[in-house]
């Protein structure tokens, strides 16, 4: 909305908007305080005292490290798969018009448009029908499927801004298809892919609903966290892990924002 006059906003609107934003942010800030509390058994407020000992305790917990390492490995491989598939799909959809183009966009978006539980149970029943045992790769299979859309969205937005005449110029100057891709297309879409990849990583790192159906006995970090939420064993450790998770997901989002903020479509609006 453009308004040439710059009259100030009504007070009521300001207050409502500020309250809304506070409602969104205060709960997350609370996590940071609870990570330092000395209280072990309950969620009592205000914290009776502040301490940093839980960071050391968490650091020495092998189960947390195992869960973290599994999450990072799953997210890395899912992101790699999603980068390849999402870029290919975006390139095909944006450079040509062909029959079934709309269907393909729908196909890419569907895994994230339908509730996660449907994706999860669908994968699980497919694994059981095909008698595939649960493993690292069944988790990756699920994650890569819904990560494709994030890369796809970012890449499509960038391809739309990249002029096709540059590719033609490159070809006219004698470059073959691979050289054009390497020296013209790739530098143009690189930041969009980086942003998309980071968002895909964040999405996979945080995903829990689909994972509960495809993980079997293994614990990713969100599954570890879910266990702690249902049957709390050591609350202070959960508090510290929660804080670290917030910080870890914060960085890729900020980075993705700075990489794509000049564009007309900023990364991250389609989760």
């Amino acid at each position, binding site marked *: *909305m453009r*308004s040439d006059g*710059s009259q100030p*906003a009504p007070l009521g*609107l300001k207050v*409502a*908007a500020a309250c*809304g*934003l506070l409602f969104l*942010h205060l*709960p*997350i800030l*609370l*996590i940071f305080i609870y990570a330092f509390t000395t209280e072990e058994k*309950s*969620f*009592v*407020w*205000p914290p009776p005292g502040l301490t940093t000992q839980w960071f050391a305790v968490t650091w020495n917990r092998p189960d947390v490290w195992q869960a973290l390492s599994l999450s990072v490995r799953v997210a890395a491989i899912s992101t790699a*798969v999603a980068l390849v*598939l999402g870029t290919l*799909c975006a390139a*095909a959809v944006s450079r*040509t018009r062909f029959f079934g183009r709309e269907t*393909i966009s729908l196909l*890419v978006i*569907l895994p994230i448009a*339908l*509730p*996660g*539980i*449907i994706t999860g*149970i*669908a994968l*699980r*029943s497919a694994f059981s029908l095909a008698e595939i045992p649960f493993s690292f790769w069944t988790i990756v299979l699920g994650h890569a*499927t819904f990560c*494709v859309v994030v890369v796809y969205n970012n890449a499509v937005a960038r391809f739309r801004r990249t002029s096709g005449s540059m590719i033609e110029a490159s*070809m006219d*100057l004698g*470059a073959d*298809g*691979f*050289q054009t891709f390497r020296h013209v297309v790739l*530098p143009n879409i690189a930041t969009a892919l980086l942003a998309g990849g980071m968002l895909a990583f*964040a999405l996979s790192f*945080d995903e829990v*609903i689909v994972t509960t159906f495809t993980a079997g006995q293994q614990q990713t970090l*969100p599954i570890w*966290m*879910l266990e702690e*939420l*249902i049957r709390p064993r050591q609350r202070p450790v959960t508090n510290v892990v*929660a804080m670290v*998770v*917030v910080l870890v*997901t*914060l960085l890729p989002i900020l980075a993705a924002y700075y990489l794509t903020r000049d564009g007309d479509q900023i990364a*991250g609006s389609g*989760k």
Partner: protein
Amino acid sequence: MTIAVLNSNPAPAILPGSGGMRGALSDVFWRKPKLLLLLMLLPPVLWLGIVYIGSLFALLLQSFFSIDEFSGLINREFTLKTYGDLLQAANLDIILRTVTMAALVTLASAVIAFPIAYYAARYARGRWKALFYLGIMLPLWSSYLVKIYAWKLILAKEGILTWLLAKLHLLWLVDGWLLLPIVGGNSLSVSSTGTFIVFVYVWLPFMILPVQAALERVPGNLVEASSDLGASPGQTFRNVLFPLALPGIVAGSIFTFSLTLGDYIIPQIIGTSRLFIGQAVYSQQGTAGNIPLAAAFTVVPIVIMGFYLWGAKRMGAFDAL
């Protein structure tokens, strides 16, 4: 950008053509663009088609199987018996409860989202605009479980909310509310009210973004013209802003509605023992081992969302996405 890349290379500005296999392959692609298109589409379509559509199909197939009540084994014969089981009163109760919750959550999200979206679209400029953008984006991308956990901390009996209300001498208000049937419970963290608050909190950013996108497209002078013609702010909102924002609200409601329909973690952690669709699916496939009934249950949100999307499309919500 291209020029910068070429200049930064010490190599000549025009690269030598690559001969051999690669050159030949490149020529083939040039002559047959359809082949290149096919090769580019094949991996993603195969992946999504086999892994995702294949799985959905497997799920649908299972909903037509039935479970043998004595042995607990799945009987792989076509039957509509499982759908008959789905229509039992207890299950219809679950469906009704979930849909009501989804509708209330959607309504509340729209009410809270509108002022944020309107301020961000009309008044925020420059640095503030970026701040608003990140202020919506960061909660959207923050860990889902951490957000639920934060509310477990807030709503706990010994938590910050009780403390705050005690300071304000308002505890009687909450205690009175918790005594009410349906919305009440022993404490906020085991009541439907708690479930509702957490749902609204977690899905709110999904509502703000499309509403903001819709409001960005409303010309500011339209609002000014309305007030020049003597409309009160309330009338301007009802007759100008709201109708123009409606496609955005409907687009956002697709997310809030669909996400609430399918969620099973929030009501499990913060809420009563009364089940939602997601929990029913989870317990049927897990502890009960009744995958056919779980599959039939998932068809419910798919059908509801199908109708919802159809209605939303007729209202032009997809242009606002």
